[in-house]
């Protein structure tokens, strides 16, 4: 056990800091509470920034240069994630492309599909990930969007829902049922669907914040070339597990750093509202601080195991804990302002209405990407070995 990184890692960090200072656009430095844009569009600065990161080998440092990286070691990658999180700088406003689609294409794709990975990671091609359906959310394996093989192509019929960025995406990394006659996990495949194909209809849905950030996607007799199948037929379930494997040891940093920044901001808010001598407020904030610090330590502890190649059960706790803590922190931010907490009027609200907005946004964190209940089920059965209910 050891508290500091070595000289080599710090040199790596220094280089990154220098790069960020020189290139990060001011918009990326706007301390944001969440990744994502407010209106569902992908602003030009964000696209340019992602491309700049890629071109300098700072998009996914663990990858080789042609994939936007610099062959960084796991520890260097952690330092990288740490520094971005510390400065609150996002890499991209849509993580689907570089974090899910790119890595999956590289791991499971054909040669032609692997060639699509750089554009996905650089953000030149915007992707959406079509998993959830009206009747298949937590129970993803029961998805029913049907893809029937007809000669050299699939014919796709069905519907996806809550598909982030489908309105702006060119392509959908889409989970479909290719075999209805086998146990449900065994009849799923992934196909790449061009969203401008005839028979695709994208109907925007709005988040509770009002931002049109996700959509319903309908497929009616959409013809998809057989070559767009990713991996083997009926073997798509395996792909749900594939994402940025070498970053997995550090993705928790985003959540923890977000919590820590929010605690800092709450302390500042309490000062501004003259609550800094209020014992109840002091204790609540100190408890939040302790929780965030504890989670940070737990994340690093998990990383140590991860870097040595073992799986890190600690990381199963991180999404659950950081998403719930963040909700509580934003709610606390409302409470600290008394009756003014719900004011959204930019001229009257603290920080232009940041707190109520961030609170609403935070409600998604315990639903998207696997609900808190599903996370608890996974921890209970896989980490703790409790019997299944």
């Amino acid at each position, binding site marked *: 056990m050891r508290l500091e990184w070595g000289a080599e890692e710090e040199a790596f960090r220094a280089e990154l800091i220098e790069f960020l200072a020189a290139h990060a656009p001011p918009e990326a430095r706007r301390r944001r509470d969440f990744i994502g844009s407010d209106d569902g569009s992908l602003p030009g600065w964000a696209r340019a920034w992602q491309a700049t990161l890629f071109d300098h080998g700072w998009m996914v440092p663990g990858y080789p240069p042609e994939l936007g990286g610099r062959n960084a070691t796991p520890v260097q990658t952690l330092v990288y994630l740490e520094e971005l999180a510390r400065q609150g700088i996002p890499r991209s406003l849509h993580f689907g492309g570089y974090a899910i689609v790119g890595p999956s294409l590289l791991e499971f794709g054909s040669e032609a599909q692997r060639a699509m990975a750089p554009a996905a990671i650089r953000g030149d091609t915007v992707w959406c990930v079509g998993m*959830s359906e009206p*009747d*298949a*959310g*937590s*129970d993803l394996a*029961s998805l029913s969007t049907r893809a029937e093989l007809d000669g050299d192509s699939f014919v796709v019929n069905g519907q996806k*829902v*809550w598909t982030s960025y489908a309105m702006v995406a060119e392509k959908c990394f889409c989970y479909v049922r290719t075999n209805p006659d086998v146990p449900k996990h065994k009849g799923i495949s992934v196909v790449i669907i061009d969203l401008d194909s005839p028979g695709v209809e994208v109907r925007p*849905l*709005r*988040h*509770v*914040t*009002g931002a049109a950030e996700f959509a319903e996607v309908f497929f009616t007799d959409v013809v998809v070339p057989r070559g767009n199948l990713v991996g083997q037929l009926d073997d798509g379930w395996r792909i749900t597990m594939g994402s940025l494997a070498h970053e997995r040891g550090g993705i928790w940093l985003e959540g923890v750093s977000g919590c820590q920044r929010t605690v800092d901001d709450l302390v500042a808010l309490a000062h501004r509202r003259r609550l800094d001598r209020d014992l109840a407020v002091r204790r609540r904030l100190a408890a939040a601080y302790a929780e965030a610090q504890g989670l940070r330590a737990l994340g690093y502890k998990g990383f140590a195991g991860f870097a040595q190649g073992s799986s890190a059960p600690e990381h199963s706790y991180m999404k659950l804990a950081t998403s719930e803590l963040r*909700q509580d922190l934003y*709610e606390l931010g*409302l*409470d600290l302002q*008394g*009756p*003014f*907490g*719900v*004011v*959204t*009027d930019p001229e*009257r609200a603290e920080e232009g209405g940041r707190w*109520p907005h961030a609170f*609403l946004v935070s*409600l*998604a964190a*315990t*639903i*998207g990407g696997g*609900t*808190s*209940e599903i996370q*608890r*089920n996974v921890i209970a059965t896989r980490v703790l070995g409790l019997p299944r*209910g």
Partner: protein
Amino acid sequence: MDFTLTEEQEMLRQAARSLFTRECPSSLVRAHMDDPAAADPLWKHLREWTALAAGDTVDLCLFLEEAGAAVAPGPFFATTALFGPVLAAAGHTALESVQAGELTGTVAMAGADGAWTANGDPVKTFVPELDRVDQVAFVGEGPTVAVVPAQGLAWRPVATLDSTRRLFEVEGPADRSAAVPVAAQALADAVGRATVAVAAELVGAGRWLLDATVAYAKERTQFGRPIGSFQGLQFEITDMALAWERAAAAVAYAAMALDAADPDRRTAVHVAKAQAGEAARRCARVGMQVHGGIGYTWEHDLHLRLRRAYAGDGLLGPVTWHLDRLAELLFDSDRET
């Protein structure tokens, strides 16, 4: 103590429920976000119920629970739960016109700190529906009450999470001659009544959330069974129901205590508002979680109640404010609040 409703009260509740179901669909609530005039047709029906401004608090609360469930917009709450009671406390003759459904009004009382205690602040905050009512009762230091026409006042809207209740900032009237003294106890009871009225609305919004959540947990299936059969969700929903039941009872108790001028009524009001704010917020958060992705959409009506739950908690004192007042009563028995 008897919590059972009389036959008249049961009829009042039923009448309110069917009125709001019929006249206040979510399409009206959503149209009102962009154009406040969308609530006018609802007001045409509600103006027949403004006699509630002066009757029993219990009756007003029964009615407003239904208004809260429907997140009803418009001047009814401001007129019957704020303006009417303050007129009554001041012995103002305009109360008759309010009861007859001929006059709408609101109250400007909270000052810079947002608390509903008499103060001399020049700018009043959290004034509901100010631009769409006839008159405003300004409550000032003393305490005093000045009833003036809303027209001609210097105001500005202040947007909150909840578009169904429009709030304003307003400067006190230039002419102070209208201010007349009001008995402190009478004013405290009027504010107490308004506070319990907001709590009743919160109970209504919470009930909608609870009912919708229980129904959804029964009907939504994942993994081949209703999600309501997963114990993890059952416990969450059970705790939500407990919070709601406790709050609904506390609100009914406080309403009865006000009607009986019970010596315990001040405490009961703080308990009711704190419990109702807590319960409504909890119902909103658990309700959202149980609904999953569909609950997170703008298109689903859940967020309309979630917004009302948080904004209603803030109005006339959030949970924390009422708990602080209770703490003073518990610890500083010599202190008058």
